């Protein structure tokens, strides 16, 4: 999807911030259809405004000020939406980045500071509109910095490594099964084997996937 003036929704609980972002986006040629102060307002706007190309969404918002934006994204994806979403995060957290990208295609994860960089922000909006993935350079730098192969990963079979790579791209078990022409049950047992070999236990399922991908990323260079 590509149009000259992307229709964008800005969601942030800070009034001045979302106003600033709106101005930056407008100046860069976007059409800011609405702004919202929290997740509920965002959902409401989305049902009202069907023709939205992308959402610029702050992760940390009321009520708990932890990961509301990310949860909203996961809810959107769970409801089958392919809307482009650029998440804004105050800190570049690899965990959050992976969770964001794992939610599905058309997702970006940027440091909030980037909003003053109109070019980067609009580029990200356009990328996610087109179903692409954006991860903030600073986070990528963090992920690849240790640059030591992980001994744990060497214990994975080729097939398991393939499954892990697809997990890192954000595929669900079902998606992986389709791509590798395997039964979902087989994929599930591969995933379980990966978790065991990487010694990732007793965490919520989504975290387990994130942690597994973290290890892959850290071993990737």
């Amino acid at each position: 999807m590509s149009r000259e003036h992307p229709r964008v929704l800005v969601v942030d609980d800070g009034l001045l911030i979302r106003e600033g972002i709106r101005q930056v986006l407008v100046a860069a040629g976007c059409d800011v259809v609405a702004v919202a102060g929290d997740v509920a307002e965002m959902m409401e706007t989305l049902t009202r405004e069907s023709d939205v190309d992308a959402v610029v969404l702050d992760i940390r918002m009321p009520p708990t000020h932890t990961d509301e934006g990310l949860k909203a994204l996961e809810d959107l994806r769970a409801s089958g939406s392919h809307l482009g979403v650029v998440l804004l995060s105050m800190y570049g957290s690899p965990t959050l980045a992976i969770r964001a990208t794992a939610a599905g295609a058309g997702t970006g994860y940027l440091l909030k500071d980037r909003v003053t960089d109109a070019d980067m922000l609009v580029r990200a909006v356009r990328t996610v509109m087109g179903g692409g993935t954006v991860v903030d350079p600073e986070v990528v730098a963090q992920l690849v910095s240790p640059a030591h192969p992980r001994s744990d990963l060497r214990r994975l079979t080729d097939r398991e490594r393939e499954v892990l790579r697809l997990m890192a791209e954000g595929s669900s078990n079902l998606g992986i099964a389709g791509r590798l022409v395997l039964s979902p049950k087989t994929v599930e047992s591969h995933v379980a084997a990966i978790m065991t070999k990487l010694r990732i236990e007793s965490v919520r399922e989504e975290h387990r996937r994130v942690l597994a991908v973290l290890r892959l990323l850290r071993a990737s260079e």
Partner: protein
Amino acid sequence: MLYAHPSGPPARVDRNDPSRRGCRSRRGAQLLAQAVSSVGVDLFSNLGGYIIDAMVGIGFALAAIAARRWGASKSMPWLLVFAALTWTFGTMSDGLGRESGWWVPLAGFQMGYVVVVVVTVVGYPTGRVTSWPGRIAVAAAAFLYLSNIVVHLFFVDPAADRACLCAENPLALVSDVDLNYRVAWWPAQWHGLVAIVLLVTVAVRWIRGTQPWKSINLLMTVAVLGLAIAWLYLAITEFIGGSRPSPVLFYLVTLSHLAIAVIYAAGLFQLTQTRARVADVMIAARDGIDRTTWDRLTRQALDDRSAQVLWRSGSRGLVDADGAVTPRPASAFAVTSDREEVALIAHDPATAAKRDLLASLAESIRLTSENDRLAGELERSLAQVRESRQRLVGAADDTRRRIERDLHDGAQQLLLTAALSVENASRRAASSDDPELARMLATATEQLVLARRELRELARGITPAVLNHGGLDAALEELALRCPVPTSVTVVGDGRPSELAETTVYFSVAEGLTNIAKHSGATSASVEVQLGHPLHLTITDDGIGGATAAAGGGLAGLADRIEAVGGELTVWSPVGRGTIIRASVPSLEHEPA
């Protein structure tokens, strides 16, 4: 006493009675002459008597030693030594009195043992005379003794009877046979009076006495009865001038003295045995015993089945071992601590005689209860210190979170807003004809970027936001990511740790990894967490070792942090062989997710 047994005149009660010494009648004088001429024969035939006399002296001496070793009263040993001396002196003086007049007045002193015997009997076993009948008996004996001294000093002169052929008493004020005769009955009658008082005292005590008292006093009572009856009988026969009593009676008197000395020593010994039981109590009490056990031990130690320990319980007054409120008992021994009564040993009235034993028991009860109280106080204040330390750490963590939140909502937002404004301004400037302004605004933007990056790093260091949304494992993974030394992270186990435990583990690992990066020279490290309560944390590296958690050491801060929340830290870090840090952290808040 050369002629006292058994053919001589009655001796024990009135051995120095001048009339008995042969001046009372012609028959007596003849007997005396007979005796003097046959000293050797008497010596032989009276051997049994001498042996018994000597045994009584030795008995008193032994009782003195017993009183010295085991007795409660300080004066008792000396009184008994006095008894031994006066008794022995008495057994020797009779014959000597005929050789030198000086022995006559001195003979008055020899009856000292009577006073001692009375004190021993009525004060048994402690040596303290507290009852009024007892005091009267002692006073009567003392009066008898003193009056007898006076009589012998000034009013007895055996030489008054020419037939006696005795030496003169140099202190005698009068020398008169009749007077000799008249004062003769004096000691005998006083013995009788003392015997009556003793009999009354013993009878009253026996009737009033409780079972434990009787068991202690049975033998002594029998001995006293024997002595008192013999004294009384002698006094009566003397008074009515009847026939000379059987020598057996004198043996009975002598043997009663011996029995009293022996029973006294034995009684003291028995008391020491019960004192040994106090030692048992002390040993048992050392291990901390309950109140029911205190009752049992107290009964054993006192040999008193009615004994019981009553505890003072604040406003409720006295309570027994089961906590039931109990009225103050009639006979009890107070256990005091800091002049305050903390408990009472209720006991049989007779057990009051075991004063020292009671005092020892009371002392061990006091020590134990004070120990318990101190231990409890220490435990409480330690718990308070631990809690307050934990609260401080928790408060510090809360403050960190609040500062981070304030930074996020305040300074960071404001800076970002300012940056957005500058960005908008610089866009306008770019489209205007003022390149100088555009350049200035571009510089401001760059400065703002730097300012925000610094602030972001600062805020990240204050509290890890990832803990809030990603959990401990994700937070530790991110720490490992930022560590220049390749680090593996393993988290196993169920449940989510408490917030305090999470923060503690996070900062401990952060500090540990910083330490590894800075000082260890390691090529790899690992962080392992076993969830649960307590949570176990292990940080391992393959570096140079030599790390220490002691004050000033590289890991001191980490140790403080772990210990502040009630955890434990051990560091194994031999030089050249890497480092293993193990910590356990209490984690008791969240149920398994």
